[in-house]
């Protein structure tokens, strides 16, 4: 009995120290052979599933090493012992007609006496231990020896079973830690709050709560060189590690390609082409990409198969924006390809909410889905309670994260809130009017004319509807500079025409981007600088038309040159876009 306990304890210790079950089994077999005074022994482990079950020798002791030997699970003494879960004894092998001596003929070893005991724990068959030839006495085993082997085998089986379980646990622990690391990397893919600069009033923010450790959802945003903010939110089908990996790939593509060419529809088209190049096993990504301009409140959105985003206007109304193309991951040849159609919105102080279905299909405390209506109610309440955009979406995620329960699905929400930016725009217009036009810009007290410097600077969306504001700015400033009424009208016309060219030609009527109009007084001249961020325009192609050729169009450049003393196309300081400088002597 003591031997039995000692063996169990020793095997347990040994396995804990080595973490190697094979070595532990070898040690155990050695101890058992010594205890039953056997010349040799072998430990067989049952492997494979029926009908391919077989017994493989994992440890061998004595003069002949048979480690690796495989025998059919239903053959011989060992096979029988395992199959019946009973021990076997062949006391005198040489005189036993049932004993197969062919093995001895091969190995040159003479088997005189055999004991075999099954290794099993609570009906779970592990294998068997076989010992041969007693070293003492007549060299033959007796019933006592069999009883001892049975007891030791029971201990060994328990130790092996424990070790296996411990091994599985350790493997699971390793997997769990790997998963934690993956989740940490994944969290690192999400953008920092407030963008790269950590701005407090940054207009874009998000929340992501994975249902499992890793997530198939993601969002991202970053600021472009011209101040516009690119953003995305996507949901990869599935929730496991495969979804997380595809998420990482898609997120990287968005960052890389988005910095190159941030036109949302084309960007989604390019991401789709890249994603489709790899085998997806039927996985796909629903994805929204867009670009938001805090200066104008203008937002361009493309939606590839994603849950419709919600536009919440300042009048309290919601508008849903349906997907305009199939999800990313559907081969372009199936869908006809082409850029994902874009939608242009003007937030006007409102907010755009983009979310995954986990946010609307999650359960609230009453075991009901939050639903799109519930989501809208929470947003409305959040706004009327004066919550920040981040606090509003955190409230949604918190409500769906019921304590002690796994989420039904990943919850991800992104919001683009124009409220602060609208306030900034209004302040800017107020200041412009107050400082530059109503009171008059930097007046020289004696002469009552402006001194050198900027008279007025405006940043407006490159759209036809912005021109009225530009004309007003030119009208007020030129009049303040002392131009005649007719000259003022001419200047208004010339600057209007130059801005029209930016809208119609530089941005090619895409309704995308801004222009900056800086009106200055420089050493006795009225100077207007017009700056855009469109692709560079070929200056050689800008020529006034021949006026004898009466036809519609082409008059703008003629007007500009007729009115202005000097017109120059300059290189913008940072090399982006176009810069036009026009001058008229006062």
């Amino acid at each position, binding site marked *: 009995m003591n031997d039995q306990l000692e063996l169990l304890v020793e095997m347990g210790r040994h396995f804990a120290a080595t973490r190697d079950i094979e070595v532990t089994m070898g040690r155990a077999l050695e101890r058992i052979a010594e205890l039953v005074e056997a010349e040799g022994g072998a430990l067989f482990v049952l492997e494979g599933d029926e009908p391919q079950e077989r017994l493989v020798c994992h440890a061998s002791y004595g003069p002949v090493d048979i480690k690796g030997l495989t025998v059919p699970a239903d053959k011989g003494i060992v096979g029988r012992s395992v199959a019946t879960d009973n021990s076997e004894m062949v006391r005198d092998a040489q005189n036993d007609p049932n004993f197969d001596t062919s093995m001895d003929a091969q190995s040159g070893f003479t088997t005189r006496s055999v004991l075999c005991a099954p290794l099993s724990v609570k009906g779970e068959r592990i294998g068997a231990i076989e010992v041969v030839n007693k070293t003492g006495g007549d060299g033959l085993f007796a019933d006592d020896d069999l009883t001892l082997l049975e007891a030791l085998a029971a201990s060994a089986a328990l130790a092996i079973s424990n070790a296996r379980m411990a091994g599985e646990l350790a493997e699971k622990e390793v997997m769990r830690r790997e998963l934690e690391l993956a989740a940490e990397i994944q969290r690192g893919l999400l953008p920092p709050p407030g963008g790269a600069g950590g701005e407090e009033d940054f207009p874009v923010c998000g929340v992501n709560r994975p249902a499992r450790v890793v997530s198939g959802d993601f969002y991202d945003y970053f600021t472009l060189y011209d101040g516009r903010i690119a953003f995305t939110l996507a949901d990869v089908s599935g929730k496991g590690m495969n979804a997380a990996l595809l998420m990482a790939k898609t997120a990287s593509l968005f960052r890389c390609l988005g910095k190159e060419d941030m036109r949302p529809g084309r960007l989604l088209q390019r991401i789709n082409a890249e994603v489709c190049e790899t085998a997806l096993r039927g996985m796909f990504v629903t994805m929204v990409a867009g670009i938001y301009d805090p200066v104008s409140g203008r937002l361009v959105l493309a939606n590839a198969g994603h849950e419709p985003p919600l536009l919440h206007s300042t009048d309290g109304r919601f508008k849903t924006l349906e997907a305009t193309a199939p999800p990313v991951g559907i081969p372009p040849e199936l869908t006809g390809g082409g850029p994902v159609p874009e939608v242009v919105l003007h937030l006007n102080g409102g907010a755009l909410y983009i979310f995954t279905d986990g946010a609307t299909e999650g359960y609230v405390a009453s075991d009901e889905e939050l639903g799109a209506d519930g989501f809208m109610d929470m947003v409305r309440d959040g706004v009327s309670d004066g919550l920040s955009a981040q606090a509003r979406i955190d409230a949604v995620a918190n409500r769906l994260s019921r304590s002690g329960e796994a989420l039904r699905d990943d919850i991800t929400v992104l919001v683009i809130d124009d409220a602060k930016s609208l306030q900034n725009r209004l302040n800017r217009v107020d200041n412009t009017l107050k400082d530059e036009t109503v009171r008059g810009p930097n007046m020289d007290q004696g002469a009552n004319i402006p001194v050198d410097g900027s008279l007025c600077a405006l940043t407006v969306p490159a*759209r*036809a*509807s912005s*021109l*009225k504001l530009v*004309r007003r700015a030119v009208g007020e400033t030129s009049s303040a500079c002392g131009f005649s009424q*007719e000259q003022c*009208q*001419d200047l*208004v*016309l010339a600057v*209007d*025409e130059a801005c*029209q060219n930016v*809208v*119609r030609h530089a941005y090619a009527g895409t309704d995308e981007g801004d222009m900056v109009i800086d009106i200055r007084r420089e050493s006795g001249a009225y100077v207007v600088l017009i700056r855009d961020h469109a692709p560079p325009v070929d200056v050689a192609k800008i020529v006034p038309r021949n*006026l004898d050729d*009466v*036809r*519609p*169009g*082409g*008059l*703008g450049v*003629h*007007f500009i040159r*007729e*009115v202005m003393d000097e017109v120059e196309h300059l290189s913008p300081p940072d090399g982006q876009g176009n810069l036009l400088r026009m001058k008229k002597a006062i």
Partner: protein
Amino acid sequence: MEIGITEQGGLSVVAISGEVDLSTSPKVRDALLGCISSNKGVIVDLSGVAYIDSSGVASLVEAFQTAKSKALGFALAQVSDTPMRVLKLARLDQVFVIHDTLDDAIAAMV
């Protein structure tokens, strides 16, 4: 910008007022071409125009050419100072038929 269309003596009189710019000129173009397509001579009353740009002028030129190709009359009337200045800049004051009053225009075209 507002456009009013009336009929006088078998002619369409299109009265335009306000600012004709890039965002409003397509409406001017449509209104003028619409009148010409009904085979009537057109008089454009520019007395209320506070501003007109090259796109507005282009609409007038296009309508003028379309009318000519259909042998229909096309004239401008009561051109206020601002649009007249722009027409002069474009040297179009010598191309368009321009009358001081609506009555003059109607009398000349009927």
